[in-house]
């Protein structure tokens, strides 16, 4: 579904990603775990066209994405819920969802998907007329995920959905991520610092350190890997 090959990204003299390769199989959840600053968000930003790559290749359903502008990539069926959520704080909850469906013309389908999002996150329905800036961090994360779903993507990239959110809401959000994957058959690439949760819900896992993939395996195996346990799972 999504294949990254030897992706290199740099800012000026600094190289952020030193040739990263990973695959996300159709219908699966894959996760990329790593510490803050390891290059996780950079990779997603390069895939979705927000920043240019130096070299390498990103294939989505066999089509090369590198070199395409961000606003055309989402049209291909790849949605990106970015780091820090980036909901439009000046727009209402409902408008944020409509922005997610910006490229779609099927009014009935948009309304149906909006209702799906509202069913999944009833909080958003309660607050549909509120400006998004007034939502809590957890609600904003729900909105960011819902907004990404509104483009009706075939693959969804989530950047740290657990970041800065009350622990109770984190559990809810991860349940919903699994639900989206099962119910909609949506392929998901999940980027997380919270390795525990990420490895639990995903099938394939990758560990990134300072711009390099240092480990990759099935998530079950990664959870038992001593190195992962030591560095990412709190050593127990």
């Amino acid at each position: 579904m999504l294949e990254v090959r030897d992706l290199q990204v740099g800012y000026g003299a600094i190289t952020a990603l030193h040739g990263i390769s990973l695959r996300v199989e159709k219908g699966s959840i894959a996760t990329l775990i790593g510490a803050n600053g390891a290059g996780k968000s950079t990779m997603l930003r390069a895939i979705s066209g927000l920043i240019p790559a130096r070299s390498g290749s990103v294939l989505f359903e066999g089509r090369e994405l590198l070199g395409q502008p961000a606003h055309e990539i989402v049209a291909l069926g790849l949605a990106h819920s970015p780091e820090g959520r980036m909901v439009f704080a000046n727009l209402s909850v409902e408008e944020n969802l409509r922005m997610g469906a910006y490229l779609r013309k099927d009014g009935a389908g948009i309304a149906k998907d909006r209702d799906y999002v509202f069913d999944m996150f009833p909080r958003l329905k309660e607050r549909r007329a509120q400006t998004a800036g007034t939502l809590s961090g957890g609600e904003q994360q729900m909105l960011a995920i819902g907004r990404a779903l509104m483009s009706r993507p075939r693959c969804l990239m989530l950047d740290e959905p657990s970041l800065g959110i009350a622990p109770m809401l984190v559990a809810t959000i991860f349940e919903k991520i699994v639900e989206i994957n099962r119910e909609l058959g949506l392929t998901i690439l999940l980027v997380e610092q919270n390795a525990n949760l990420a490895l639990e819900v995903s099938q394939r896992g990758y560990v990134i350190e300072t711009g390099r993939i240092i480990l990759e395996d099935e998530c079950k195996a990664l959870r038992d890997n001593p190195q992962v346990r030591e560095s990412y799972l709190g050593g127990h």
Partner: protein
Amino acid sequence: MLSFDPFELNHPVQQFINGLALGSIYALIALGYTMVYGVLRFINFAHADVLMLGAYAAAFVAPVLAGFLGGPSLLLLFATVLVAAVVCAGIGMLIEALAYRPLRARPKLTVLITAIGVSLFIEFTAQHPAVFGAKTRPFPQLLPAGNLEFAGATLSRVDLLIPVVTVLLLAGLWVLVQRTRMGMAMRAVSFNQNAASLMGVNNNRIISFTFGLGSALAAVAGVLYSVRSSGIDPLMGIRPGLIAFSAAVVGGIGDLGGAVLGGLLLGMLETYAGGVEGLSNYRDAISFGMLVVILLFRPAGLLGRAQVEKV
């Protein structure tokens, strides 16, 4: 010699309508500054010169249109305004594409200085004898001559018309920004361009549209301003541009309602200060003094919210 006696000039209704008309013009110009600031976070100093180009476009096209539409009339005014608005929308979009877009990723100061460069380029090109020339030239008459009498006040037709036109344009603008897909995209781009592009928004298109819209409003303002004045010249945009820019700041830069409020406020201040014996020479000092006072108490402007600069 003035044709009015001082009593008439100071008539309260007349003063009010004058202030409202002038303020409406400032408001229309201020909207352009504030919309561009909203999407790009910089001040388009060439905006005032677009206004001037609108006035010249009107001056050239009005006689031609008058040939089709007959003499001065409301229809002639509207047709002229429409042509000037279309011309200026094109010019505004061209300026953005040629001068500002290539610098989009550069520091804001670079773009700001470029805007000053574009402004000077337009002003001095326009003053060249082969272009418009530096001399003031008469502006064609678009509305029938004669004033209206109301409760002892002498009101010019254009001064009565300007607030009406402005209200209609504002209503249209509000619908566009708040109720259409394009307007929603403009608001989204103004909040976060990266996030907007992840939704499939082509930022270039939205920014270009914003420049076109702001420039069209400047053209409307330019024509109305010229109808009120004795003539037009290549530097005519500077003063109303400066005042409208201040209006946008005092209202809260980036806020459309603030631009209108600021414009009306400055138009009124200028008119009332100008109408007081002995103060008229200080009208700008009074206007800008008030600005300083307002900004001391509300640094983000009347309707602006204090914002943390995003990294």
